[in-house]
C-alpha cells in the first residue's frame, strides 16, 4: 500500500475500531490518535481490541482535542510524525477521523493516489476570498487571540473578542506567512508533509497557531502552500456543511446517494447507520469513474439550506411564521382580484373562468359566506365556507387559498361589501393582479329597485370603503399590478378592459376570448345617481355617468395603470 492513514478518534470508539480495522486489513498502516478526554480504562480496552493488528496500527501521544483549539493540530502532528518515522516508504498520508468511512474499495483510492504521486489534496483558499466562515470571524481568526473555549466559555470568548476589537489589538503574522483556510481533512504527499513538519520556522509558527481560532482548518492549509509543488485544492473526504457550519450527518437512507457520488471517504456518518458500516465492511462499492463527483450530492444539501434559510414562499405553518417583510413572497403564486366586474355582467365568473382557464371564485370575502367557485361549500385544502372561520383566520385565509390552489390560477371577486381585512395585503403583494371598476357598487343598488332616498346611507358607506381601498392601491407600498377604471370609463369600452384583465391574469392564452356576457340593463342609472346627488350624497367614484342615455359614442379613454413604486 502506498499510503498511510492518521485517524483522530474522540468518541464512538467501537465504530472507530471498525474503521481502523478496515483500513489496516486493506494493508494501510494506521496511526491512531485518541483524545485525552477518553478515560484511560476505555482507551486501554480500545487498544487491546486492536492488538492483533499491532504491526500496522500504532497509537501516538495523546492530546486534549477541543473544538476550535490547538489540540487537534498537535494530535495530527504527532500522528503524522510517528507514521512517517515508522513507515518511511509511504507516498501519501490521509488524515481521517473515527467517523470518516471509506466507501469505495481501499485499492481504488490507492491506485488513484499512486497515479498522482506529487499531488497534495488539500482544500486551501485565501481567507478573504471565501464566504465559508459562519459567525463573522474570518480574518480575525488570525489577528485576534482566543484563549477561551468557544464551546464551554462562550460568554468569555465573545467578550474577549469584543474587547480586542475595541482596543484595536492585532497580532502580527510570522514573517513571510500568508494564511489559507479549508477543510480539516486532507491527503498530503509524504514529501510535502515532511517538509511541513520540519519547517525551519516551525517553533515560531506553532507558537503563533496556538492562539489562532480553529487552527486545524488553517495550519496545514497555509503551510502546504509554502511547501507543496502541486496543490489540488479539494478534499478527498466528502463532507457537507449546513448553514451554521456544522457537518451534515449521513444515514442509511443516504447510501444510494453516497454510492453515486463516487467519493472515497465520507463524513460524518451517524454511528448507528448500520447499512453504511456494512457497506464498508463488505469492501465498499466500486465506482464507475476514478474521480469522485460530489456535485451530484450537492443539490440535496443545497436544497436543505435553501429550505432552512428561505423556506417556501407563501407557506405559513408550524415551523414557518415569518415576521412582516420576511415572507419571501406573501402568497405562493400569482392570482387575480376583480372588483366590480361581476356586478355589471350576469354570468361573468363563468365567462371569465372559460376565457382564462383559471379557477374563478365569487366574493370569497362576502359577509354571509365564502363564495367558492361553482358554489362549493368546501374547497381545496378542506377550507370551509363559514364566514366566521374565514374572518378568524385573517390573512391566513387568503394565503391558504392560494397555497391550496397551486397549479391553477386563482381569481376572486372583491368589493366594498366584503370584509376588507386583506385590502392592504393584496395591494402590497406582487403576486396580485388587481382590476377595479370603481363605483360599480352603485349598480346592484340601482337594480334593487328601491328608491334612492333609502339607499343613500348604504351608498355613502360603500363609497367610503372603496375610497379607502383605492388609497391602499395607490399608496407607495402597493406592489401589485393594479388597473383602475371608473364605472363611466369602463362602460365606454368594456371589451378593452376585459381583454387587459385577461392578459394580466392569464398571460399567453391562445386565441380570442369567447364573446363577453351581456351588460346588465343600465337605462336610468344616470338618473338614479343624480337623485342621490340631489339628496346630498355624491357618488364621485362612478365617474361621469350621463343622466340621459344613450349618449353618442366617443373615442374610449385609455385606462390608466397605477405603476408600482420600486
Amino acid at each position, binding site marked *: 500500500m502506498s499510503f498511510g492513514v492518521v485517524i483522530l478518534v474522540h468518541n464512538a470508539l467501537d465504530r472507530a475500531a471498525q474503521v481502523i480495522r478496515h483500513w489496516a486489513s486493506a494493508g494501510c498502516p494506521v496511526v491512531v490518535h485518541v483524545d485525552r478526554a477518553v478515560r484511560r480504562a476505555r482507551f486501554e480496552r480500545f487498544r487491546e481490541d486492536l492488538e492483533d493488528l499491532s504491526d500496522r496500527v500504532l497509537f501516538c501521544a495523546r492530546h486534549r482535542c477541543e473544538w476550535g483549539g490547538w489540540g487537534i493540530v498537535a494530535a495530527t502532528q504527532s500522528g503524522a510524525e510517528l507514521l512517517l518515522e515508522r513507515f518511511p516508504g509511504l507516498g501519501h498520508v490521509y488524515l481521517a477521523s473515527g467517523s470518516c468511512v471509506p466507501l469505495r474499495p481501499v485499492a481504488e483510492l490507492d491506485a488513484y493516489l499512486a497515479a498522482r504521486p506529487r499531488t497534495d489534496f488539500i482544500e486551501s483558499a485565501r481567507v478573504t476570498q471565501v464566504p465559508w466562515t459562519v459567525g463573522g470571524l474570518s480574518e480575525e481568526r488570525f489577528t485576534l487571540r482566543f484563549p477561551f473555549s468557544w464551546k464551554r466559555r462562550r460568554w468569555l470568548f465573545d467578550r474577549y473578542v469584543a474587547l480586542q476589537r475595541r482596543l484595536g489589538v492585532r497580532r502580527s503574522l510570522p514573517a513571510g506567512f500568508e494564511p489559507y483556510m479549508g477543510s480539516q481533512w486532507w491527503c498530503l504527499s509524504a514529501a510535502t508533509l515532511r517538509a511541513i513538519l520540519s519547517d525551519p520556522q516551525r517553533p515560531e509558527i506553532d507558537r503563533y497557531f496556538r492562539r489562532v481560532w480553529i487552527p486545524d482548518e488553517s495550519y496545514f492549509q497555509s503551510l502546504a502552500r509554502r511547501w507543496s509543488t502541486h496543490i489540488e485544492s479539494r478534499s478527498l473526504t466528502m463532507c457537507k456543511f*449546513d*448553514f*451554521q457550519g*456544522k457537518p*451534515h*450527518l449521513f*444515514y*442509511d*437512507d443516504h447510501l444510494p446517494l453516497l454510492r453515486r457520488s463516487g467519493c472515497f471517504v465520507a463524513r460524518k456518518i*451517524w454511528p*448507528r447507520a448500520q447499512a453504511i458500516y456494512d457497506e464498508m465492511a463488505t469492501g465498499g462499492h466500486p465506482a464507475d469513474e476514478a474521480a469522485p463527483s460530489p456535485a451530484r450530492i450537492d443539490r*440535496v*444539501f443545497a*436544497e*436543505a*439550506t435553501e*429550505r*432552512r*434559510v*428561505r*423556506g*417556501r414562499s407563501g*407557506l*405559513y*405553518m*408550524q*415551523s*414557518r*411564521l*415569518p*415576521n412582516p417583510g*420576511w*415572507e*419571501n413572497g406573501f402568497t405562493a403564486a400569482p392570482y387575480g382580484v376583480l372588483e366590480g366586474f361581476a356586478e355589471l355582467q350576469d354570468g361573468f365568473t363563468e365567462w371569465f373562468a372559460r376565457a382564462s382557464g383559471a379557477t374563478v371564485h365569487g366574493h370569497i370575502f362576502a359577509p354571509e359566506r365564502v363564495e367558492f367557485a361553482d358554489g*362549493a361549500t*368546501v*374547497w*381545496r*385544502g*378542506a*377550507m*370551509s365556507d*363559514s364566514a*366566521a*372561520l374565514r374572518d*378568524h*383566520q*385573517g390573512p*391566513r*385565509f387568503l394565503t*391558504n387559498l392560494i*397555497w*391550496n390552489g397551486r397549479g391553477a390560477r386563482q381569481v376572486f371577486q372583491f368589493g366594498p361589501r366584503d370584509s376588507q381585512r386583506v385590502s392592504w395585503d393584496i395591494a402590497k403583494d406582487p403576486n396580485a393582479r388587481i382590476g377595479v371598476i370603481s363605483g360599480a357598487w352603485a349598480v346592484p343598488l340601482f337594480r334593487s329597485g328601491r328608491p334612492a332616498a333609502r339607499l343613500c346611507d348604504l351608498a355613502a358607506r360603500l363609497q367610503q370603503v372603496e375610497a379607502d381601498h383605492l388609497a391602499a392601491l395607490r399608496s407607495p407600498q402597493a406592489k401589485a399590478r393594479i388597473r383602475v377604471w371608473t364605472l363611466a370609463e369602463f362602460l365606454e369600452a368594456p371589451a378593452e378592459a376585459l381583454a387587459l384583465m385577461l392578459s394580466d391574469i392569464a398571460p399567453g392564452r391562445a386565441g380570442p376570448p369567447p364573446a363577453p356576457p351581456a351588460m346588465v340593463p343600465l337605462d336610468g342609472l344616470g338618473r338614479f345617481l343624480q337623485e342621490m346627488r340631489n339628496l346630498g350624497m355624491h357618488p364621485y367614484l362612478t365617474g361621469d355617468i350621463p343622466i340621459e342615455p344613450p349618449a353618442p359614442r366617443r373615442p374610449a379613454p385609455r385606462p390608466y395603470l397605477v405603476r408600482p413604486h420600486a
Partner: protein
Amino acid sequence: MKAWQAYRLRLQRKRWRLRALRKRRELSVVADRTDKIRPADILVLTTLRNENARLPHFFDYYRRLGVGHFLVVDNGSTDGGAEYLAAQEDVSLWRTEASYKRARFGVDWLNWLARRHGHGHWCLTVDPDELLVYPFCDTRPLKALTDWLDASSIRSFGAMLLDLYPKGPIGAQAYERGDDPLDIACWFDPGNYSLSRNATYGNLWIQGGPRARSFFADDPERAPALNKIPLVKWDRRFAYVSSTHMLLPRGLNLVFDEWGGEKTCGMLLHTKFLDGFSDKAREELRRRQHYAASAEYKAYAAALEAEPELWCRWSERYINWRQLEVLGLMSRGNWT
C-alpha cells in the same frame, strides 16, 4: 422582553413546578421500573384513562421508533388497561383517582414525572391516541432525530396535531384492539389552518382542521389548539404550562422560524375519531374533566347526535411524512 415580564414568567414557572411537587402525592406507584432507564434512553410520558383498546398498537409504534421507557399515569381506568400496562417490562406505572382537571389535565403529574425521571433525557409527552411522525421516520429511528437535535443545540421539537378521521360516520368501522388506527382513521384536512403568535409565551397558536370546520364553524375562537411541542430534552427546571402546547422557559417555544426559513418539525397523528368516540364523548361530558368546561365535548355531543361525517371532498388520505411535507404541513428544515 422587559425584565419584569421575564421575572413574572420565572415566578410562574416556579409555581408550576411547585404545583407538580404538590400533585405528586396524588400518584401511587403500581410498577416502578425506572431503575431500568439507561442514560441515553428516550422516554415517553403519558396520562390515560380507559384506553385499553389502543394500548398494544401505541406501544408497538413507539417501541419500533426506539423509545426506551414509558412513564404512564393511569387516571382510574376500569377497562383492564392497567393490568396490561403493569405487565409491560418497559413501563413504569402510577395510578391516581384524583381529578384530571385539577391536575391541569394531567400536566402537573407529567411535569412531576419528567422532573423526577426525565432530567437529561429526550422526553416525548403524548396521549395514547397521538402517533409522532417526523422527517425520515420511515428510515431513521427517533434516536437519529434526537442525536441531530443535540448536535444542533436544539432543545425542543414541535409537532402539530393532525386530526385524522374515517370516511363515513365516525363509529361505522369497528376498531379492534391491536389494530393500526390509521387503517380506519386515515383522512385529514390538508390546508385550512390558521396561526398566530402568543405574545406572552412566544409559542404559535394553531387552529383549524376538521374539528374547527365541523364543530366550531360559528365559534372559531374556541376551536381546539393544534400546536404542540411534545419532544423536549428535559431539564428539571422546565415545566409544561398548558397541555404540551407551551413550556417555560419560553425559549423552548420557539420551534418556528421568524425570518422566512422552515425549521425541522414533525406531526402528531391524532386518531381520536374512531369507533367508541361517541361513547367516550358522552362519558367525558358527564365527568366534566376537560378544558374550558368541556366546551369541546359539548360541541361534539351536540354534533354527534346527528351522526356527523368529518370526511369531505377535499379530505386527503394519509400516506407518509413526505406527503405531509409536500402539502406544507411539516418540514425537514435542514435535516437531510
